[in-house]
């Protein structure tokens, strides 16, 4: 064990890391990587979710304002938005179903509904990717940190036994560096849990929004189907 003096930079994270045992070092590094990853996911998903929400609102208002759905579809249908994908799926199904002379209205309605539901599910599935990592980090990181702490404290107690000295100067640095592992674990876990709840809530709202849009669009298409059949398309 290196000679340690109680100076101010003893508490700097770099020193705490460098003085730690190999196992504790590995724990710290892993937790730091988990923290970086967590924050990367948080930033990425927050940015995405905000963009998608803004885009969806604009898309929806534009969509209901337009008179020519076909033109709107050819113009905006390729937008990288979940709502655009839902609309594309519905129109695609509509075109395929009404291509034939004999239109099965009930079957078309059913197919439209299932296609739109599938599109919503696909989009949400794509968006909620990696949120499980947040959940995992949030629940496991404290334990990993605790493991590092327990290991470090065991090691520092062994050092005490070796030094035959229980003065605070011998005990304190080892315990401080061990507790640093738990600190990193909590540092990674707390934002992960908060972000997981927040992002899940945001995705739930987005899903509700998409479902509402799908239902509304489905009602419109359904009505259109009756009109077109009535006019004998």
């Amino acid at each position, binding site marked *: 064990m290196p000679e340690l003096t*109680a*100076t*101010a*930079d003893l*508490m*700097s*994270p*770099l020193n705490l890391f460098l003085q730690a045992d190999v196992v504790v070092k590995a724990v710290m590094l892993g937790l*730091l990587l988990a*923290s*970086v*990853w*967590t*924050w*990367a*996911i*948080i*930033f*990425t*998903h*927050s*940015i*995405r979710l905000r*963009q998608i929400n803004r885009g969806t609102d604009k898309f929806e208002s534009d969509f209901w304002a337009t008179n020519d759905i076909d033109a709107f579809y050819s113009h905006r249908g390729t937008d*990288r938005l979940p709502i655009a994908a839902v609309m594309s799926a519905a129109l695609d199904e509509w075109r395929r179903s009404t291509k034939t002379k004999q239109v099965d209205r009930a079957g078309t309605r059913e197919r439209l509904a299932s296609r739109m539901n599938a599109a919503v599910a696909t989009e949400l599935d794509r968006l909620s990717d990696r949120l499980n990592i947040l959940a995992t980090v949030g629940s496991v990181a404290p334990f990993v940190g605790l493991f590092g702490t327990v290991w470090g404290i065991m090691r520092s107690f062994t050092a005490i036994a070796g030094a035959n000295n229980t003065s605070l100067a011998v005990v304190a640095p080892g315990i401080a560096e061990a507790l640093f592992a738990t600190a990193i674990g909590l540092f990674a876990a707390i934002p992960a849990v908060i972000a997981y709840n927040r992002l899940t809530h945001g995705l739930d709202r987005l899903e509700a929004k998409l479902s509402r849009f799908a239902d509304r669009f489905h009602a419109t298409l359904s009505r259109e189907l009756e009109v077109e059949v009535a006019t004998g398309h």
Partner: protein
Amino acid sequence: MRMDRAEKVGTGAALLFHVALIGAMSMSLAHINSTPEPPAMEVELVEEVGLTAAAPQQVVVPPPPSQAPEMGEAEPVEAVAPPPPTPRPTPAPVVKPVPPRAAPPKPSPVVKPAPPRTAPPKPTPRVSRIGDDFLKGISDDKLAPRAGPAPKPAAATVSASAMAGIVQAIRRQVQPCADRQVNPGEGASRIKVRMRLQLTRSGRLRAPPQVIGTSGVDDENARYEERVKDLAVATFVGCAPLVGLPPELYETESGRGWSDFIMNYNLP
């Protein structure tokens, strides 16, 4: 491409955030104001340290056995204990064959054990109240002086402080004689003479003081060495009866004590 950009931005931001945090903690956030150390305490090194226990050893004297007659009732154990060996074995074989053969004698086993129990106490005098000779123990004790140990137990050893006290006492008594000596010449006062004093309990010299050795002799004062030795002997002989020394430290179990004592002497 937009999604990928969001991912890149997010990862970059996370990395930057962590680097900035660690940097900030290393630079200033984690600084702890160390409290100034308290001023060091003054410590005096004491040379007179008793490394061994100097307390007088307790002499355990067993109390003399009581010779006075016992007061109160005779102990019941003594009364009951003697009878079993003789009377019991005999009645048992006699009584046991009797009840099975003759049915009626129920009271007989009750009555028969009774006599042996009541009979033995009678011969021993139960009345042991205060007798005529109740002063026997006391008078005996007074007449015959105890063959006990010395009234004052010898100390186990002489503690350093006690030794220093003895040296002081001897030096004080010898001082007048030492002052009378004439310094033979320059440098003679640097000579230190180690003297062995053999004293009796009353403080007299058992033998003339012996010179064990000298120190501090150099070229300048070598010629005064013999003279200083003589002066040292004369000093202790002149003020010989050394009184007031602690009697319990005359001899100790460890062999140290002022019965055979070594002192340093040098001219004033």
